[in-house]
């Protein structure tokens, strides 16, 4: 018996399985008329704080919202988010540093998607691996806080490139940490030209109106990504809601 090496062509995407699942999820979300927004950032950039606020406010406007939240361990975030009274499910990933489409699919068991308007997915705090995994979302927000420095997009270009909108958080601290907003904006545009940027602070409320209006514009027209929301003020007037809800935990 003799053996000889032979070249076999494969040409398969390693993440094909995830991409196929994500595509199915995206179709399911579209069929249910559901907008799905995911959030990625480093640990501590303020995903959970922003999400808690978002859920509370969107509920106040009468939208049906829900959230999935991923962490390596603990159900702390789900408990925090549950204060908004929106349905929340924690995905505990164990040692896995990112969510994948299959975890999302399993977490949705028992939920009727047609009853929801927006589903938020908070990824594990990590700027590396989540960029490779499509979760079937319509919009991916990448958060960076002012305390992380202006060059974050240059250090992690892949995740910024995989996202649709950059959200700069903790703007209330910008002055204290001498954050150079123009440099941050320029860095984002270098790694993802034309990317929409929203600057906000959950604590002071600055920028929250623009952010919430952006989400609302997506609900009306999800296929449009770079939306200028000129009717923010009218929208809030019409709803009779103060866009800034005082931070209860502060």
């Amino acid at each position: 018996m003799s053996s000889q090496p032979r070249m076999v062509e494969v040409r398969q995407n390693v993440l094909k399985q995830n991409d196929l699942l994500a595509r199915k999820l995206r179709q399911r979300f579209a069929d249910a008329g559901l907008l799905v927004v995911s959030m990625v950032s480093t640990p501590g950039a303020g995903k959970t704080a922003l999400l808690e606020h978002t859920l509370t406010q969107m509920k106040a406007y009468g939208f049906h919202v829900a959230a999935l939240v991923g962490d390596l361990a603990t159900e702390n975030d789900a408990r925090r988010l549950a204060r908004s009274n929106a349905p929340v499910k924690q995905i505990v990933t164990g040692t896995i540093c990112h969510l994948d489409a299959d975890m999302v699919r399993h977490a949705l068991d028992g939920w009727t998607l047609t009853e929801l308007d927006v589903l938020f997915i908070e990824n594990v705090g990590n700027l590396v691996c989540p960029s490779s995994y499509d979760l079937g979302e319509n919009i991916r927000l990448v958060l960076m806080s002012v305390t992380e420095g202006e060059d974050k997009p240059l250090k992690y270009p892949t995740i910024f490139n995989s996202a649709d909108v950059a959200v700069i958080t903790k703007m209330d601290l910008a002055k204290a940490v001498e954050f150079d907003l123009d440099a941050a904006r320029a860095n984002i545009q270098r790694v993802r030209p034309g990317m929409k940027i929203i600057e906000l602070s959950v604590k002071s409320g600055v920028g929250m109106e623009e952010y919430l209006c952006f989400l609302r514009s997506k609900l009306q027209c999800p296929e449009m990504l770079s939306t200028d929301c000129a009717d923010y003020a009218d929208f809030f007037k019409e709803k009779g809601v103060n866009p800034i809800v005082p931070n209860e935990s502060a």
Partner: protein
Amino acid sequence: MIEMAKEESARRGDARVTALHLKLGPLSGVVKEALTFSFEIACQCTVLEGARLIIEEAPVAIRCPTCCEDRVTTSIQDLRCPACGDSSAEVVRGRELEVVALELEEVEEMVT
């Protein structure tokens, strides 16, 4: 990657895999060094044990709206056309994480 190679090997009578050719783009989110390091360990006790990992690094290319051409960028931190300087978010290449080919030690059928 290992699963794909194992499937391919199983289809060919569990032939030993001696090399795996991978195409890797800088925007795939996978770090070459980390992959190389873990590959050897992941191959242990499989038909890939001792297999070489041959990585072809693919460049990032954007579709330049001004030149109407696909252009390879100088850096993943700067998505601008090297010819005209215009920026573009349309990445046409650079996200690859693809098993291109396998080298198998094919077992010749026993002649009775």
